[in-house]
């Protein structure tokens, strides 16, 4: 039933071009560690789990918004939409620099790539600093989960600001995770572990960064622009 690999390798290749890479006789031993398609596939599935996590949060948001649409409308007006817009621009620019760093490494321009990675990290930090000021201003006005001020304003606004802190908070944690990830990538690029030939780690980190960016693109309108 089973023959050794050497005997049948050649005709198997011709017969089943659509099979897995092993069937094509493509990947063995050392090469398995650099299975580009496999790494990409795993990353996309991971991104999907992240997306599902936020789907649950958006489910919570939409249920409560349909219940308290008036209150959500009113509470949203209190958010600083200029600040939100500014942060959106920052994150979108960081996605650009992220993409540029990958293009640079693909052309073998190591230092350019590191420069763009550094820029991406800087923009991510900038985003967090803005977020910090935004949150502190709100907390200063007594608006935070379970605060007396908020409870007195009624159910709808309590839920709105609860969701605001929860969703932007979890998103913020993802930005921090992305910054840590990119810092590691920068070190790996410096050590030439990420290079012109092997750049899947940087590319996957880029995918993660874009995901964090896209989630913000949805968070921004549902909180800042519904008033």
């Amino acid at each position: 039933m089973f023959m050794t690999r050497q005997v049948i390798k050649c005709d198997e290749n011709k017969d089943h071009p659509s099979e897995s890479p092993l069937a094509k006789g493509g990947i063995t031993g050392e090469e398995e560690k650099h299975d580009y398609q496999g790494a990409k596939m795993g990353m996309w599935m991971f991104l999907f789990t992240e997306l599902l996590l936020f789907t649950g949060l958006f489910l919570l948001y939409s249920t409560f918004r349909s219940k308290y649409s008036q209150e959500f409308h009113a509470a949203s007006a209190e958010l600083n939409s200029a600040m939100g817009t500014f942060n959106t621009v920052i994150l979108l620019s960081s996605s650009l620099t992220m993409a540029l760093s990958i293009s640079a490494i693909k052309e073998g321009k190591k230092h350019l790539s590191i420069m763009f990675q550094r820029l991406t990290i800087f923009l991510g930090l900038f985003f967090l600093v803005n977020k910090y000021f935004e949150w502190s201003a709100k907390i200063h006005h007594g608006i935070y989960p379970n605060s007396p001020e908020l409870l007195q304003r009624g159910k709808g606004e309590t839920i709105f600001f609860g969701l605001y802190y929860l969703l932007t908070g979890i998103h913020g944690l993802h930005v921090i995770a992305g910054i840590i990830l990119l810092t590691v990538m920068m070190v790996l690029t410096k050590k030439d572990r990420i290079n012109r030939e092997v750049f899947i780690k940087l590319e996957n980190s880029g995918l993660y960064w874009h995901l964090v960016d896209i989630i913000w693109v949805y968070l921004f309108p549902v909180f800042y622009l519904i008033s």
Partner: protein
Amino acid sequence: MTINSFYNTPGRHTGILSWILSTDHKRIGILYLTSMFSFFFVAVILGVLMRLELIAPGRTIMSATTYNAVFTVHGVIMIFLFIIPGIPAGLGNFIMPLQIGARDVAFPRINLMSWWFYISGALVILVSLFTGGGAPDTGWTFYVPYSIMTGTNVTLAVFGVFLLGISSTLTGINFVTTIHRLRAPGMKWFRMPLFVWSLYATGWVQILATPVLALTLLLLIAERLFGFGFFDPSKGGDPLMFEHLFWIYSHPAVYIMILPAMGAVTEIIPVFARRTIFGYKAIAFSSLAIAGAGYLVWGHHMFTSGMSDMARMVFSFLTFIVAIPSGIKVFNWVASLYKGSIELVSPLLFTITFIFLFSIGGLTGLINGALATNVFVHGTYFIVAHFHYTMFGGTAFAFFAALHFWFPKITGRMYRESLAIKAWIILFIGFNVLYFPMFILGLEGMPRRYYDYLPRFQPEQFISTVGSWILAAGLAIMFYNLISSIFRGEKAPGNPWGGSTLEWTTSSPPPHENFEDLPVVTGGPYRFGKKE
């Protein structure tokens, strides 16, 4: 053990580190098996204590508060530490790469990381039992509002379960990628063993459902720490939201538990009936159908919680739909045995028991899934009996079957068949004596999770407790047999059962690289001629 076995190839580290830092899928599989059976042992003891408390009305050996903690911890350990990782992470890790003719999984280091998440989650849960306000007493479902109000250590326990969720998701991603990318030359999709198909379906459920559990648990932690109010009506929240989010994961999770078990018995039946499986594609697609439809039936846990009639009817209808692919599988297993030349050895005895007990569990599931009867049995012992018949009688018996079946491959030794059959008889009797009276208790109106009961329930409660002793004795004999055989059993040949899937073509235990030469597959997985 042969010289060229993975036991003799420790890799970079030595001693215990050669296990807990190994990226070899076989070593990781054994790490999972040993750790999860240790937790299983703890939960069995808790279960026996719980039954002992219920032997007579009133206080017997523990207080009501302790009883609440005991059934919660029994449930949390059995569900999250034993039966969810159970077959996929333990046996799946060891067997699946062998069955598709791969050298390892797609991401060996992430595989090791999954085990570390698993063991950290387990340790966090264990710590939560003895610190803070004491062991959680909410039941394994952590329902709000009680889980937010109770002073026990729910926050830490829930964080432990969150870590276990990460472990499960990563395993799912790893397995799906492995099955897509690392099949041996010629191993087309429809030449894969059905155990691999079931792990593939399970992998997708793990990927698609677990993030929702992670979110639900995060919300519960946030609620306890900051008091957002999402589940608190006085702050505008809704406790039903928790139940929805919880069951969106936890119902698909029962298919994470049962699908690999179904896959394992599908491997065992053809080998001991010595004929090909009946309806290969039907079994493969029914795994995917169960995974797909199982995602949409969570509402049947909430029929009495307050939902619109329309929603309840849709959820009830979909629940009946899930019974169809499950029924297809049962028919196919029985049809595979028909006219086979059956060898009635312990793995097959456990398998047939699985079919019998799982059928009882599955059919009583329809009684729970029908709206009118659900109102009658909801929250009674009937439910307890039903899920023990599916989870213990189903998954755990299939797990035992698979453990005996692959024992020679994993350890390189044979167990004592006569003792295995004795253990099987005792387990079968003990199981039914323990859980069947619960169906009757449930129909008579005994509510689940109650510490005390009316004297009229005493006869069934007493029989059930006696059953728990028989079952525990059976487990003790089975594990004594398996563990002592690791050291004293006869050496196993590469293919002791005459199996025809790839894992039997390599030596027992397999070498570090799994195969001397990567195999090339030229036909389906179940082809039997004369036994070698």
